[in-house]
């Protein structure tokens, strides 16, 4: 559950994500709630542990930002070296995905439509949209006016018939 009060110290990995991972690791095993809660908190501790160590390593290098290599070195020095090969695989995929997207966006740029033409098309679309908006606004205004007029007329005839009714009553009384 996200804390809306914004207290950073209450941050944890969402319970649902942990539950899912536990389920995938230990299918068909029941897990007590307090055990799950402990795993959630252990994750937080793990993240703090690794990022502190990675931070130290980063400070010793000439870099200002913690890099994936710093994290990997931190894992090694804290006894989690067995995680490194899998972590590296996934880092490689991340770089490949980024590379593919960079290639894709440059291919898009070279679609063949010159920039001036694209700009012109854009201006046309904007102008059309503005016109449609204006027409719509005008229609709404007309409808409002008509509705107001009708309301006035209805009110006027209602009060007129009221007056006619009351004068009739008075006459009848006089006759009797």
């Amino acid at each position, binding site marked *: *559950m*996200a804390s809306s009060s914004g207290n*950073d110290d209450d*941050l*944890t*990995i*969402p*319970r649902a*994500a*942990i539950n*899912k*991972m*536990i389920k995938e*690791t*230990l299918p068909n*095993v*029941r*897990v*007590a709630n*307090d*055990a799950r809660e*402990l*795993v*959630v*908190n*252990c*994750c*937080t*501790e*793990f*993240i*703090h542990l*690794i*990022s*502190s160590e*990675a*931070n130290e390593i980063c*400070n010793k290098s000439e870099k*200002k*930002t*913690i*890099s*994936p290599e710093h*994290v*990997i070195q931190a894992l090694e020095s*804290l*006894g*989690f070296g067995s*995680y490194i090969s*899998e*972590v590296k695989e*996934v*880092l490689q*995929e*991340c*770089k490949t*995905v*980024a590379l593919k*997207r960079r290639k894709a*966006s440059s291919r898009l740029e070279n679609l063949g439509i010159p920039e001036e033409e694209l700009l012109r098309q854009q201006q046309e679309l904007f102008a059309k949209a503005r016109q449609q908006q204006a027409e719509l606004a005008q229609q709404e205004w007309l409808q409002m006016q008509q509705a107001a007029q009708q309301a006035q007329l209805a009110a006027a005839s209602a009060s007129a018939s009221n007056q006619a009714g009351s004068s009739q009553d008075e006459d009848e009384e006089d006759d009797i």
Partner: protein
Amino acid sequence: MAAAEPGVGVAPPAEEPGSGPLCAVPLRLARLPLARVKALVKADPDVSLASQEAVFVLARATELFVETIAKDAYVYAQQGKRKTLQRKDLDNAIEAIDEFAFLEGTLD
């Protein structure tokens, strides 16, 4: 928010590490919400900014950590002939395994 946070960003990775949207990662690999991992890293005032890829590596390592500790704890449940993993199984694993020493005293 919580689990609804996907680990997939759609924008291109920023050139500036640590800023901008998180890089798009293959969905099947990002089970932990990257934004939350990043927030946890940032919560420590002494820690510098981490690049997107660093956050990603840390998230993946955390997933492996969960898998490992769950499996290690389960060994104790099996020894106790139980089918339910309990808190004490985790406590046992934490005590027995050197790498988990940092977890001693972690409360639930």
